[in-house]
């Protein structure tokens, strides 16, 4: 179940090992997934001075598109850290241990326990949605292990884990954005499209992410005159959305927003087209972030708008080697043959932050000190400026997304055009906002 990377080591796929490991575990059928990346290296494994970074992401299951670029990023970071880092007055090797949350909270908690108790990592990084980031952070907080998470709305991460205004976590931190950035951006795009009414269809399932939207969006929309049509929290992975669609049609909602699971959005959007529900502007969250989703929706992808927190056009650079966002995306395309995705920049930055926190501490094995480094972290890297002291709550750094829309691409079938940079003018737009239908 482990994929570990040692700087300087070459990846070696070991399917047999994975099958053996999986056979020893009981539970769901997806267990073997992505376990076959047993990597061994020649580096300084076994040296007690080696720093271990644990990384958890949903490499399989319905949220797997979030982790599609992980292998590439880990390879990049491994190369960048191959000479090790200087931490606590000593030169140390860095080892990265990768775990798969299989898109479930229980599995995420289990693999984090493994990282902490078996692999004895010095810091745990987690990516993509509260389903993975929250249980990972909970385990880290309970065991006193420093942690950074990303691609999770901060409200779902902070309030979703039982903290109240004014309280704080000691070991766990995150960078991403929250309801304010979502609502600012989406309502600005709604206002610019020239809809004849201000009725917004909201497709929010009953999960951590969507419930954060359900409590965060309506209070921000009300004062701006937007009317919320929320048919209610449905269960993920349903096969039919006709009841939601008929409500949206009955209300004549010209604007649409949502936070479903990616496969559910595919079902919904096709069915909406069949049932004749064509909103003037669809601004979606959590889905349509990645090219594979755009491809599989075919023609119906055109002009769906979403939030973009990282793209090759963002004027950001790596703290490891000065590589620009554009170069990172180009390298990804060359090495994997695939189109860039937003997760590239975020996951890359997780490792930038981890390296900086470990090297900034006078003793990188002192968890309290590393945690303090994270809480006070200020860094300007692949995800732009991140200030963990200036967020809405302690230990949270805020990114400001721009608006993007999928349109026919040149090299790949669909490209993300940046269409609304009102809230982050550092990023240049590459197109105009257009109606979805």
């Amino acid at each position, binding site marked *: 179940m482990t994929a570990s990377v040692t700087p300087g080591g070459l990846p070696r796929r070991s399917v047999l090992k994975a099958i053996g490991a999986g056979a020893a575990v009981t539970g769901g059928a997806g267990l073997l997934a992505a376990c076959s990346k047993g990597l061994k290296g020649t580096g300084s494994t076994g040296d007690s001075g080696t720093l271990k970074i644990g990384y958890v992401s949903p490499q399989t299951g319905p949220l797997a598109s979030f982790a599609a670029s992980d292998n590439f990023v880990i390879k990049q970071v491994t190369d960048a850290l191959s000479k090790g880092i200087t931490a606590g007055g000593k030169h140390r090797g860095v080892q990265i241990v990768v775990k798969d949350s299989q898109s479930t909270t229980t599995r995420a908690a289990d693999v984090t326990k493994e990282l902490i108790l078996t692999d004895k990592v010095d810091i745990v990084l987690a990516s993509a949605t509260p389903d993975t980031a929250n249980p990972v952070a909970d385990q880290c907080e309970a065991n006193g292990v420093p942690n950074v998470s990303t691609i999770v709305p901060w409200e779902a991460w902070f309030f979703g884990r039982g903290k109240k205004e004014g309280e704080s976590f000691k070991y766990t931190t995150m960078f991403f954005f929250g309801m304010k950035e979502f609502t600012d951006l989406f309502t600005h795009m709604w206002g610019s499209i020239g809809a004849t009414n201000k009725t917004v269809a909201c497709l929010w399932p009953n999960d951590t992410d969507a419930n954060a939207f359900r409590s965060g969006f309506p209070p921000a929309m009300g004062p701006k005159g937007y009317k919320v049509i929320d048919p209610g929290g449905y269960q993920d992975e349903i096969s039919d959305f006709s*009841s939601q669609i008929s409500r949206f049609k009955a209300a004549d909602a010209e604007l649409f927003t949502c936070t479903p699971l990616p496969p559910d959005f595919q079902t919904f959007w096709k069915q909406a087209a069949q049932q004749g529900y064509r909103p003037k502007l669809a601004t979606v969250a959590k889905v349509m972030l990645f090219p594979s989703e755009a491809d599989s929706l075919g*023609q119906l992808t055109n002009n769906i708008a979403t939030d973009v927190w990282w793209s090759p056009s963002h004027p950001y650079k790596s703290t490891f080697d000065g590589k620009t966002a554009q170069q990172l995306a180009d390298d990804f395309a060359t090495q994997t043959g695939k189109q860039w995705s937003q997760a590239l920049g975020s996951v890359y930055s997780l490792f930038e932050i981890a390296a900086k926190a470990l090297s900034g501490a006078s003793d990188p094995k002192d968890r309290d000190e590393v945690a303090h480094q994270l809480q006070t972290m200020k860094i300007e890297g692949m995800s732009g400026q991140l200030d963990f002291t200036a967020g809405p709550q302690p230990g949270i750094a805020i990114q400001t997304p721009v608006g993007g829309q999928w349109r026919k691409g040149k090299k790949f079938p669909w490209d993300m055009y940046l269409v609304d940079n009102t809230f982050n003018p550092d990023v240049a737009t590459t197109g105009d906002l257009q109606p979805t239908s």
Partner: protein
Amino acid sequence: MAWVNAVVQGILLGGLYALFACGLSIVFGVMRIVNLAHGDFAVLAAFLAYSVADATGLGPFWAGVIVIPVLAAVGYLLQRVLLQRSLGVGPLATLLATFGLSVIIQNVLLQTYSADARALDIGRLASASLRISGQLSISYLALITFVLAVVVLVGLQLYLSRTRTGRMLRASSDDPEAARLVGADSRHLYGIATSIAFATVALAGVMFAMRSSFDPSIGPTRLIFAFEAVVIGGLGSLWGTLVGGMVLGLAQTVAGQFDPALTLLAGHVIFLAVLAFRPQGLIPARST
């Protein structure tokens, strides 16, 4: 009108569930095997159709036409080589064998195709529908799926009850020893039953891949709905499977119209109610 739409969509959705459940029903009805890899074989068929369409430039329907016999052949071989052996050991062995297949298929697909979501692109048909009124539209794709489901299930039921092979199949199912005495080769017949089942699984997988999107991990969810349709309708009865699929689809959409939060719950509650109060299912096998 919204309620009428919910009922219509429920019946159409039921067609898809019944199509999924058909193969499960046959394999259970004839061999008493619960195929836990059922949903994963449907996903496998979807990926194969995707590859065929990608490689040859054929439309997804033609890709489906190519993939269905391939899966039928896979089914025959699987029965002769793997399932027949495990049948001799006992019912638990077949469960474990199909569970193992499920794990293997998911991981092979993950290695081969990555975790990306895909769909079979059917162009304009994906959004085309028959508009009956503002609130009532019938998607052509859902209609095609429904008609296919009815044709397949009715056809197979007639095949099993009217033809010589069908009668031998049922005889082998009832008493393999006695059937062998009068000249029926039960292993070959079981192979045929599995290949028919796999052909319907492939069809269901391809139709689902056009309707929604698929990735290597969605098989088990599909299995649950298929399993519920089979149990609601009555184990081993194809008429029952058709009815079971529709009851499940209707329960979901009508409850969803009432409150979207109840969609899946309503289906599960019906399933539990049938198990508790009518465990033989709505149309049990013996009554046909």
